[in-house]
């Protein structure tokens, strides 16, 4: 499995075992149940942030392990971090306008 091919083959193959995939899948199912249960409890303003935090954690698990980003090149990391940063710009600048409009008193 770890035979060396002097750079002629991708060097990323099978850095993760079968059991690891099952473990991540189990964690994703557990977090899905957790988010459903959390939505049944009245947590005031915290319901939505908690749901989004759980969804983000699930997304990070999928990206790092199912998408093998934990073993990906720095260039791939740069693309992913840049896209999340740009998504942040999209949200922050949009919400800084729309979500603060009710603050104005005419």
């Amino acid at each position: 499995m770890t035979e060396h091919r002097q750079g002629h083959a991708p060097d990323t193959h099978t850095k993760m075992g079968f059991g690891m995939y099952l473990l991540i899948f189990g964690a994703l199912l557990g977090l899905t149940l957790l988010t459903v249960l959390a939505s049944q409890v009245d947590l005031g303003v915290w319901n939505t942030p908690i749901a989004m935090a759980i969804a983000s954690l699930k997304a990070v698990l999928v990206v790092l392990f199912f998408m093998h980003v934990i073993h990906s090149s720095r260039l791939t990391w740069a693309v992913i971090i840049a896209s999340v940063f740009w998504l942040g710009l999209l949200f922050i600048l949009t919400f800084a306008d729309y979500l603060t409009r009710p603050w104005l008193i005419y």
Partner: protein
Amino acid sequence: MSDLVMPAEHAEDHHPHHPFLQHHFEDLAQQHEASILGMWMFLATEILFFGGVLAAYTIYRVMYPAGWAAGAHHQNIPVGTANTAVLLGSSLTMALAVYYAQLGRRIKTVVMLILTLILGTVFLGVKAYEYHAHYTEGLLPGVHFTYTGPHAPQVQLFMTFYFGMTGLHALHMIIGAGLLIWLTLRAWKGHFGPEYYGPVEVMGLYWHFVDIVWIFLFPLLYLIHQPGGH
């Protein structure tokens, strides 16, 4: 002329030319790295594409919280939860298809790809069942919208977002299912192994991305908590 050129080329190339190595890459490792990077570039545009829809959703949700809660109240949470599990399962089988392709296990790769296709189809079938339920309840926006409960106009807006977002997601899955059929045929022909499995890995990136979109859509469209229980 060619008699003179050919031996010189072979002297540099110690390994037999891999049939799927494109001529513009140095070797399979570089080709693999480029395809992974290219796919992430595409996914970056997809992240921003869905991000724009999510921003619009958030603006209207903050504007009409009661309408959003009333709309989400019409979602079938047990069915949505089960369908989320089905989609996560399809991501597991997709990840295992890549795993077996890396090991050169042809039959197991094919089986995992077919399982992914089946689970994806089950997800779409359940989605169709849900769409039909919304239609019969009069919740399809437009001329068929007959819902007359509280916050009806805002519920119609919520349902517009619901159909738009889940519809875009379903469209991505339908495209993914088509690609899976093509990939399964290639795997069956024995195209993939430890040296060359890029297409399976790139397909995996796409499929997992679509899974991540659903991971966010599920709480946003099904699990809106209603103060006081409604």
